């Protein structure tokens, strides 16, 4: 088959203990049978491992942090585009989605496609708005409250019993068993991710996740549910297995149909002792375990790029159940000149 040549820029090349999805997204794209993909990595820091993976990343450029504003991001992308002629950008960090959503039309005018949720979809699924989201779409979610001042914690903890989850607006979650702990985590999380933090009812149970892709018209293009088998102290799945739970797929379909979700997503679910699922979080992007979806027969990064390019993409009808991913770390030996190049010139 003649594979369509495309140049795709991918962010989130980091791989710390809370790894970014960039490298597994690239692995999926490189294994595509329909696309011949040239990868342009977009990095923030000079030590992101993906920068140095020359076998799968063809070129890397540093880009400014989202906090520096969309104009400086756009200026940098214009420069990169002038060199690389980008077809598609896949942003993979929560914090950079909003700027990329805002830039969608301007990028399109330059000839660069994205396939992201709308601003409304992005906002209403936000952790802060999750209770309203659950009510609107008839999805069971745990009670939660946004908190801007640590003095509010005492009052809220009278309404919601401990233990409670203290969550950052983008990342991080800690279980607090009393108000003192909650205040401690408030400061820790807000220092890193800003305000508000979210206090969420703690649901005891087994963690499941669903990775999916919606076409923006209410149709499911892809969905793979997993059970987390090995969870780090950061709550990240370091091992998982694909499962065939129809309830999770039905919930995913309901989510896609009712929101007309556009783009990739991850549903974080907790199954309680009554075997009922609560939706803990909706991540509006590809999760770091996306490579399992490729391994079970649903190449979500490939489908995402094809949707972004305006191609007709058929929905995946099946996936292999009982396939596992087991994550590991890998030490690369890197020449100082590579590090020097990216650190000094912002390109490699």
């Amino acid at each position: 088959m003649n594979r369509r040549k495309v140049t795709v820029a991918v962010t989130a090349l980091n791989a710390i203990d809370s790894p970014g999805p960039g490298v597994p997204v690239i692995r999926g794209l490189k294994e595509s049978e329909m696309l011949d993909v040239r990868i342009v990595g977009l990095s923030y820091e000079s030590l992101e491992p993906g920068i140095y993976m020359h076998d799968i990343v063809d070129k890397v450029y540093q880009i400014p942090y989202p906090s520096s504003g969309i104009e400086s991001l756009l200026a940098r992308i214009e420069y990169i585009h002038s060199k690389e002629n980008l077809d598609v950008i896949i942003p993979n960090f929560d914090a950079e989605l909003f700027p990329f959503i805002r830039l969608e039309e301007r990028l399109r005018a330059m000839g660069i496609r994205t396939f992201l949720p709308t601003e409304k979809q992005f906002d209403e699924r936000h952790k802060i708005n999750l209770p309203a989201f659950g009510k609107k779409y008839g999805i069971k979610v745990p009670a939660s409250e946004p908190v801007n001042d640590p003095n509010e914690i005492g009052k809220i903890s009278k309404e919601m019993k401990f233990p409670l989850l203290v969550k950052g607006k983008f990342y991080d979650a800690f279980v607090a068993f009393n108000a003192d702990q909650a205040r401690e985590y408030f400061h820790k999380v807000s220092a890193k991710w800003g305000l508000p933090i979210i206090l969420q009812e703690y649901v005891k149970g087994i963690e499941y996740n669903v990775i999916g892709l919606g076409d923006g018209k209410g149709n499911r293009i892809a969905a793979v549910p997993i059970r987390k088998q090995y969870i780090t102290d950061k709550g990240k799945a370091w091992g998982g297995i694909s499962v065939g739970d129809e309830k999770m797929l039905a919930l995913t379909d309901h989510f896609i149909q009712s929101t007309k979700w556009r783009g990739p997503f991850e549903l974080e679910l907790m199954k309680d002792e009554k075997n009922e699922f609560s939706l803990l979080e909706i991540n509006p992007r590809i999760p770091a375990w996306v490579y399992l979806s490729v391994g079970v027969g649903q190449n979500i990064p490939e489908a995402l790029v094809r949707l972004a390019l305006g191609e007709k993409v058929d929905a995946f009808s099946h996936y292999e159940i009982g396939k596992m991913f087991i994550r590991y770390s890998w030490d690369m030996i890197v020449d100082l000149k590579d590090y020097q190049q990216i650190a000094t010139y912002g390109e490699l």
Partner: protein
Amino acid sequence: MKKMKSNIALSESGFVFNPNTGESFTLNPVGQQLFEMIREGQDYQSIRKKFLEIYEVEDSIFEKDYEDFVHLLHSYQMMEPDEQA
């Protein structure tokens, strides 16, 4: 009659995988034998008769162990729900 979900997988080594929940278990040879009989749809009296023939076990102890085993299968969602007590 107790009915097991049709998609529960059992390997020759006694490894059980529930594809609905992602849980897996290991059975000893006796558990494996009991599991297979239940999966085949054999009723309690038939299973009891065979076990009492093969093993030196008191009727009352077998009954208790059988009920415990089936209870575990229910709690791990391996049995059809309409059969639950």
